[in-house]
């Protein structure tokens, strides 16, 4: 199974490379819409020149740049099923570049390179129960996968979404979550590390949600996206429920500087997260040191 899935690489040909000689040359895209998602996150609808479809797969990322500020990797939030002439990014105000991005408005321009990397092999997930465990901002790349599954619901078995945030004010996509809770073909559970007066739901780290679900280990794939510290504990829970390392996928979101397998920053041993990742199975991750 390992080899079969490993070869399912998605496009790694950089878009900006087509027709250009420089692999570092972005295209100039336009921000079509900005929505405030939380105190720290905003959601951007980005339009490529001519409204070209980004053509990504869930789990891939783009390099976003601003003149004079720099460039950073950002996971794509929108699913391919909901990406037409714009694609969507959820960006946390957490550094020099994202601080300036947060000041951008509709009509402003950004540089885009990508999509890059190997996303989640959604074809392999078809017919199986899919469990997605997302922590914090990890829900943004997870959205790409979740919406893709919801929009092709009949192709998959159960869809179980576990989502954890530090506190209720940091919960993202409350509207989408309300929709998931309404549906009888989605099982969504949300928890916060620390509750406040407004919170009536689960309290505790994301792994606490596992006691509320039953899964069929022979028929399930699990995908986890979030802070690295979370992976170790989520993997323990999933293993405890009988999933093999080949059934567990995770995203290794490193701070890529080039996105095209040259700069070295995202390397995990002899593998580039920007080329062969960021989506890797736990089995693959176990084969190299210091991945987790």
């Amino acid at each position, binding site marked *: 199974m390992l080899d079969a899935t490993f070869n399912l690489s998605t496009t790694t040909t950089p878009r900006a490379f087509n027709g250009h000689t420089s692999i570092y040359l972005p295209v100039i895209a336009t921000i079509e819409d900005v929505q405030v998602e939380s105190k720290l996150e905003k959601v951007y609808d980005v339009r490529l020149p001519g409204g070209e479809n980004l053509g990504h797969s869930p789990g891939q990322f783009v390099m976003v740049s601003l003149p004079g500020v720099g460039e950073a990797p950002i996971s794509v939030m929108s699913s391919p099923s909901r990406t037409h002439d714009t694609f969507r990014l959820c960006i946390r105000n957490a550094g020099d570049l994202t601080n300036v991005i947060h000041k951008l408005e509709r009509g402003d321009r950004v540089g885009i390179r990508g999509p890059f990397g190997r996303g989640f092999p959604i074809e392999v997930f078809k017919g199986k129960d899919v469990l997605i465990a997302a922590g914090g901002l990890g829900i943004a790349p997870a959205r790409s996968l979740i919406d893709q599954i919801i929009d092709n619901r009949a192709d998959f078995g159960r869809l179980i979404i576990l989502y954890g945030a530090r506190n209720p004010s940091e919960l993202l996509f409350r509207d989408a979550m309300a929709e998931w809770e309404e549906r009888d073909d989605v099982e969504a559970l949300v928890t916060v590390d620390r509750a406040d007066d407004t919170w009536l739901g689960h309290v505790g780290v994301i792994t606490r949600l596992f006691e509320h679900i039953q899964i069929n280990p022979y028929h399930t794939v699990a995908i986890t996206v979030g802070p690295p510290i979370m992976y170790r504990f989520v993997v323990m829970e999933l293993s405890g429920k009988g999933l093999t390392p080949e059934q567990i996928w995770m995203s290794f979101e490193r701070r890529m500087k080039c996105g095209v397998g040259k700069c*070295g920053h995202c390397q995990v041993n002899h593998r580039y997260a920007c080329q062969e990742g960021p989506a890797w199975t736990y089995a693959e991750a176990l084969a190299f040191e210091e991945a987790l």
Partner: protein
Amino acid sequence: MQLISHSGLATWLDHLAQETTLIAPRNVDGVLLYRPVQSSGDIVWDFVRPVLSVKEAFFPATERVLTIEKTGQQIRLNETVPDGERVIFGVRSCDARGFLAMDALFANTEPVDVYYTTRRENTALIGLSCNEMGETCFCTSTGGAPDDPTGMDLMLTEVDDGYAIQVITEKGAALLPEITLQELAGEIPQPVLNDPVPFPPMEAWPPQFNDAYWADMAERCLSCRICAYVCPTCRCFDVRDEPLPAENGSQHFERIRCWDSCAGEVYRQIAGGHNPRAAKGDRMRNRFFCKFYYYPEQYGPVACTGCGRCVDACPVNIDITEVMHAVQRLAEVEP
């Protein structure tokens, strides 16, 4: 093989300096570097190796990749691909061997890095054999030799009456002076070699990953990254934007890439501040694993040419040959 006299060589190099950009070992404020020269008189002849490898002529320490012009909401980008033909004279075998590793990544792995490949295509390399190995040299232990012509277009070796010229490529043949050269009488002298150091095979490395050796060895590391800067094969880089003088109400910037190193503290830091390779021992271990295990695993060539620069440059005497000894010893104890 042909022979060129000392004066014939000087005339030829003067001619090349007139015709094209000639780069050669030159004294720059007391530091020996590969730099453009105006005439053969600028060239330093008696040297072990320049302080920085010839890598910087192909992958400069800081290099502009784009210019960016912002006027209101409009953004204009220009790629700044290098042009101009060059000849580099006095290239050491260890430095040319570094191209095996650099080419594997930048030129032979898709997508191709046009900044690097353009310079490679536009540049001819005239090698100069070492008569003897420097004190910290160990090229013979990493597959090279002081007179190894790998990667060169022409290879020169000093003999009694001048220099023996070995033609390696057509590009090199096209550079040869138009004067008739004498045939070399006798043999080319063999270089004086240092004792080899152990070269642990690839399979010797992974079992030592969790050994306490790495933390011990790296304890004195200052994370200054000079080892990567002088290395002919280290090729990690950072990308950043810098302002240029503004014009006519528009803002100008350049996007540059500059050398970076896995020995640096924030090299591996990821979003949210987490750093999967924060400890010094882990970072230094990565440096050596990259050279002797990851790079060969990923691309084929070993990412060390035995030039010995990092041994000379390290302010706290971290010695790559000691690491090779140590890994060899560990592998023998615990194969």
